[in-house]
């Protein structure tokens, strides 16, 4: 019996029913999948929106119009019609003398005698101390861009004396200037240096110890109750609030080891830091804080090294140490480095423990070693936001941008290092 193609393709009504039921089920399955896809996509969207809001908020404060009012108008300082821009040094000194206290003049004299100062230097002193421009009002970037007319209106009504300038709070001089009580002169130099110092000490302290502990726990320690309890506790330590580490650092490094952290036993005597509230204390505290993170990350990295690699090494008669040093650690290194840099990124942003350990909120000189007073970027930002004058909020936004850039570049270094070491194999 022959079957025509038509017959072969024809479908009985019962079959057709089954097929359409099957198709309905399939489209239902696809629908469920679509729903979940939308849910996951919106979760991502929430994260992106939050991040964008944060960035916009910061940028909004970091740039914008500022109304600047001079304490003394420069025109009023002209002598015989010569404005201060064209005055010789001697006249500038005279201007300075007639406007600031005798005590301050003596202090300037003590720092650098007038004869040795350049005209430029004296001119800057006049600008800073006599003309003394002060921000009287500031507007956000959004307002500056879209409500310029309202701003000009307000300027005319409320600040007729003031100049309106568009200011970026993040400038090269913002990064290179030390802290100052004048918002226009204030910068983050001391804070950046303080951050770098404390972080370096934290790394030097916790990287070798953390990796060493991870190697021990992963490669040497037997899998018994005690070691499991130790591992569990390290995991818990990683979740302890950072302020607790601050209190620990205060008790341990500042109080108990004050002689060491103040540098007294090394013959370093400075009455300002004799209490042990130094960079060293802060660095060690941050080191303690990131130690569990480094241990956990390094443990994970070492655990991820395939056992076949260890067997290969043991199989040709290598010792345990040779196996660890030549095979396990090189393979785990990218992971260890990534984990460490993530831990460091966390330490850079820490504020609370440093406040407890005794970060100075206002210092204008650079830290010159592990035994000096310090402040760090987050502490500086915190201090600015806590000030009553609104203008420091803009400075804080600038500081946050610098901090974010630092974090970004650290993460970039992490990625580069990891790629470099992974490519070597």
């Amino acid at each position, binding site marked *: 019996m022959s079957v025509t193609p038509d017959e072969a393709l024809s479908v009985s009504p019962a079959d057709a029913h089954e097929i359409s039921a099957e198709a309905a089920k399939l489209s239902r399955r696809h629908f469920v999948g679509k729903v979940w896809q939308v849910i996951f996509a919106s979760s991502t969207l929430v994260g992106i929106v939050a991040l964008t809001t944060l960035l916009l908020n910061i940028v909004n404060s970091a740039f914008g119009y500022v109304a600047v009012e001079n304490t003394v108008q420069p025109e009023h300082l002209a002598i015989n019609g010569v404005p201060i821009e064209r005055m010789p040094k001697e006249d500038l000194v005279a201007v300075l003398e007639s406007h600031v206290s005798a005590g301050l003049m003596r202090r300037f004299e003590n720092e650098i005698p007038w004869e040795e100062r350049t005209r430029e230097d004296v001119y800057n002193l006049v600008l800073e101390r006599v003309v003394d421009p002060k921000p009287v009002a500031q507007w956000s970037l959004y307002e500056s861009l879209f409500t310029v007319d309202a701003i000009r209106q307000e300027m005319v009504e409320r600040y007729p004396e003031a100049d309106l300038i568009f200011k970026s709070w993040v400038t090269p001089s913002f990064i290179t200037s030390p802290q100052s009580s004048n918002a226009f002169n204030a910068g983050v130099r001391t804070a950046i240096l303080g951050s770098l110092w404390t972080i370096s000490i934290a790394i030097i302290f916790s990287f070798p110890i953390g990796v060493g502990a991870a190697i021990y726990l992963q490669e040497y320690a037997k899998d018994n109750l005690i070691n499991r309890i130790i591992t569990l506790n390290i995991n818990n330590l990683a979740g302890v609030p950072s302020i607790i580490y601050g209190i620990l650092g205060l008790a341990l490094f500042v109080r108990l080891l004050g002689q060491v952290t103040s540098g007294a036993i090394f013959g370093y005597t400075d009455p300002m830091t004799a209490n042990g509230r130094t960079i060293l204390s802060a660095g060690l505290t941050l080191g303690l804080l990131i130690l569990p993170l480094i241990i956990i990350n390094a443990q994970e990295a070492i655990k991820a090294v395939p056992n076949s690699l260890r*067997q290969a090494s043991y199989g040709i*008669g*290598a010792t345990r140490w040779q196996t660890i040093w*030549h095979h396990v650690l090189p*393979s785990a290194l990218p992971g260890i480095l990534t984990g460490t840099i993530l831990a460091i990124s966390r330490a850079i942003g820490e504020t609370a423990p440093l406040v407890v350990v005794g970060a100075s909120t206002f210092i204008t000189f650079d830290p010159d070693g592990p035994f000096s007073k310090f402040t760090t970027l987050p502490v500086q930002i915190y201090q600015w936001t806590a000030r009553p004058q609104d203008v420091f909020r803009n400075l804080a936004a600038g500081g946050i941008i610098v901090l974010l850039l630092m974090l970004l570049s650290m993460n970039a270094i992490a990625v580069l290092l990891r790629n470099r070491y992974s490519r070597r*194999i």
Partner: protein
Amino acid sequence: MASLNPESSNGRYAIEAKDLNLYYGDFRAVKDTNMKFERNKITAIIGPSGCGKSTVLRAFNRMNELIPIYHATGEVIFNGTNIYNDDVDPVEVRRHIGMVFQKPNPFPKSIYENVAWGVRKVTNYKGKLDDIVEQSLRQAALWDEVKDILDQSGLALSGGQQQRLCIARTLAVKPNVVLMDEPASALDPIATLRIEELIQELKKDYTIIIVTHNMQQAARASDYTAFFNMDEDRAGFLVEYDRTTKMFTNPEKRLTEDYISGRFG
């Protein structure tokens, strides 16, 4: 320290297991094994999954000791010394009794370094490394394929090449015995054949013990065959051990015949 120097013995047997019992914790994985491995011969160990053939193999170079709950009783005599004696260092054992694993596991280093590392770090070889690298790669029948790419990563090679690289790495430290734990099971048929040919070449210089799942491989490539099976209590035991030709044509035990003819396992 007991001497494991291969020159110190030239008896007929390279390795001899006496009353060997192997345990994982309380579980006895292999029981009461007595067997001798003839020098410069290939001995295949076959048996169903879980019968403890790999455990036995790894007992011969104390590789099992990387598993914390493992322990052994009985003796493994290598060159007149029981390698389980207290004064024998397992590191020294593994240097003389090399091992090739089921999955190719080259070091994540260059081809050259894969071979040279062990020579530099494990043996006291004072000659030129280049020579021993070439010699080992030639022995492993890999030299012609890699002589121009010695500085490339060992992981860039194909599976069969990687396994031959692992063999070269093992040979480079001049072991006396080479243990092979299913060396071809992760490879395609052509690569498997090359490995088998290579093993035939190697028996001139080495004693080879090979665990295999593949009965044809045992029949093709080995001089002696040992058949392990499992007890009711899941402990592996040696059923029969004889010349391969006899094992595959006229085995003594019914169990062996059933396994070899494919009736179980």
